[in-house]
């Protein structure tokens, strides 16, 4: 029994570490319903395209909330730079929506989506 534990424990530990480090691609996907970052991005894009700024403001807040939930899960497997960059994109987006700046808003959303795609790769 002891020999089994001595061999199994390191193997299980290493497998767990690999799962943690490679979990980014899976954990960034929506799990609880209100953490769907790509859908939130798409929603804000639609709002900005239709110049529906009130809805854009609300949906930007939803995007921020969704992203905050995803960050807690992917921080161990994702690059810090990508996480920080996406956070900054959302901050700039809030400013752009407040200023009703369509071009900046769409630029930030496009970049944010690219960062989200690169997360965990």
């Amino acid at each position, binding site marked *: 029994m002891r020999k089994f534990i001595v061999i199994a424990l390191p193997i299980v530990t290493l497998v767990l570490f690999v799962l943690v480090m*490679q979990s980014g691609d899976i954990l960034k996907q929506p799990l609880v319903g209100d953490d769907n970052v790509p859908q939130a991005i798409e929603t804000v894009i639609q709002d900005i395209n239709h110049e529906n700024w009130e809805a854009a403001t609300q949906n930007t807040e939803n995007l921020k909330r969704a992203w905050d939930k995803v960050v807690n899960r992917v921080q*161990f*497997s994702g*690059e810090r*730079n990508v996480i920080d960059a996406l956070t900054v994109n959302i901050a700039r987006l809030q400013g752009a929506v407040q200023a009703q700046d369509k071009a900046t808003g769409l630029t930030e959303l496009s970049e944010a989506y690219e960062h989200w795609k690169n997360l965990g790769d």
Partner: protein
Amino acid sequence: MVIVRAFIGFFSLLIFTRIMGKQQIGQLNLFDYMLGITIGSMAAALTTDLSSRAWPHWVGLLTWCILGYLMHVIGTKWQYASKLLEGEPSIVIINGKIMENVLRKMNYEISAILELLRNQGVFDPTQVDFAIIESNGQLSVLLKPEHQPLTPKDMKMPVSYSGISTELIHDGILIEENLTKLNKDKTWLLTELEKQGIKDISEVFLATLNPAGSLYVDKYKDQLKKDK
């Protein structure tokens, strides 16, 4: 995030180095030394370099450890490869005479050899029968018979077998498994401790028993007698 990555790096390194085995420490030649530094720096980067993912650092760490392990396995199975990869020992002193051509080949200064001899307690090279520089840079010295330390065998003195002592108590805790291996029981041990004025096992820091039956006991409260 750093704490989790430190956890991953620390225990991954622990597991890999345990698998690589003790020879990594015992036969540390220049390449093994550099391998150790490289592996260590990869583990450090895995922990603190948040600008990149942990996964590439971990894969690099694993790859280097596997390659290091394979090198030692190949060296063990194939002697010629061992000579190529790890170098081989060189005799630098024979019968008190220094082999200057060997020193020149190895880029060793004579002052370094004399220093290594002094580290072994040899201040006169003429006392040396053979001196060998090992592949890990250590100097092994065989003194001439007339300069070797005296042994009981030289004096034809009978000695009793001492063997290896077995721990019975460590840090106040009884090691029952060892007690059973020596065919002793707790009652016997307590009786022996009582002879030394000890009432409980928790008063003992270390107790060992050697094959000759001599029980060594070290208490937490050591009472050193002052010299008058």
